[in-house]
């Protein structure tokens, strides 16, 4: 009971791990590229959660600064990923990742 009422760093880490696993499952099993990209966002968010939780634990803001960098990367990744998706869709008229099996088209 005591541990339920006291939210420690471990709680956040477990939450982050669960989110990370969800993301991994999504990336590995889904066929739709859009959802795969979203699962990658889930993974990045899990990482961010850990970073901010550690930052809280050690009483500094380094983790938060790093989380901001990760968010920046996520933005870049989403932009390029979705750009590729559009180009892919234009050529193949599908968004299934299975069909990305050629190096060129």
């Amino acid at each position, binding site marked *: 009971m005591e541990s339920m009422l006291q939210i420690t760093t471990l709680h956040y880490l477990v939450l982050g791990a669960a989110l990370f696993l969800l993301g991994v499952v999504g990336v590995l099993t889904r066929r739709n590229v859009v959802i795969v990209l979203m699962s990658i966002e889930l993974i990045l968010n899990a990482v961010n959660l850990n970073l901010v939780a550690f930052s809280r634990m050690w009483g500094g803001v380094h983790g938060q600064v790093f989380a901001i960098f990760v968010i920046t990367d996520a933005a870049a990744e989403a932009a390029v990923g979705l750009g590729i998706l559009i180009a892919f*869709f*234009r050529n193949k*008229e599908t968004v299934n990742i299975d069909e990305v099996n050629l190096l060129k088209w």
Partner: protein
Amino acid sequence: MTDPNTTLSHVDIADLAAHDKPYLDANELVINMGPQHPATHGVLRVILRLDGEKVLGLECVIGYLHRGVEKIGEHRTYTMFNPYVDRMDYVAAVSNGLGYCETVEKLLNVEAPPRAQHVRVILTELNRIASHQLWLGTHALDIGAITPLFYTFRDREEILKIYEKYCGARLTTHAFRIGGLQYETYTGFEKEVKNFLSFFRPKIDEYEELLTTNRIWVERTKNVGAISAEDCIALGVTGPVLRASGIKWDLRKAQPYANYKNFDFEIPVGTNGDTYDRYLVRMAEMRQSVRIIEQAVDALPEGPIMAKVPKVMKPPAGEVYHSIEAPKGELGYFIVSDGSTQPYRVRVRPPSFVNLQALDLMCRGELVADVIAVIGTLDIVLGEVDR
């Protein structure tokens, strides 16, 4: 650039869906503008093929307002058909009547007396102003400026009041009769028309103040829907659209009818043939109309208002074509007579219908918002397009 020669010949949306084409492709989108749409000025249906917001091509589907006016003409006597023509271009009913009356007069070989001619010119030019006012209001509304609409309607009301006092009707006036006028002008007609002119002259400046130098208005209309003089001639486009492309062609000067040759006025022309030029041309035309009316009222002669026409009209067998410069362009009537009391065939050359054919050409490569602007600037009336 898209190939300008691609056509949209009868794209059927159901057909597209059947071909397993992506409903919402990243490349192409077919949307249906109208027949129930706020900016198609009635029941025009425009099938747009879009690339994002860019128009690849469009097709007009008309006929939702078809009432068979021409066919009705074959079953009515010449006099009975006269009110029907008012229902074609209902915002310029007086011009329609003038065209029809003059055509039948040509067929009968009579001429209206000078006083009638003068009154006809006054009423027709007032009508031109009213039509241009309505055009300006709705065109500006389409482009997003709400206020000019109410200004123009406020001032158009004064014209309609004059009509109401003259013949009892405001919109579909049936003001003229074959051979002249049915009604003598009411007392104070000249004064009221003059009052209107002095009231209206500053109002044109007011409209122009709102729009002519308005940055957004200029950006929305300059180089939008431009059409060259050659294309205009090839498509048979007439009226302010043609004049905005730089061709000085106005039937009032080119083939003077009524007694326009007695009046001194200019034909405003544009240079680029874009929406902004058409706007300027119409604004200038309103000013010219004011000039014509002023001269006509000043020189209004006394005399009879009706020529001698038989009670039962039986024009000699033959055919006649006569056209006038309606506010929207060349309005022509082609009447074939077989010598009976009813026309054998009536054919109307409506300016709106012919001008509408230029829509596809004017909109290719423009954006959706420009289609709205171009439909507005063509100044079509669906009643006239569909007849």
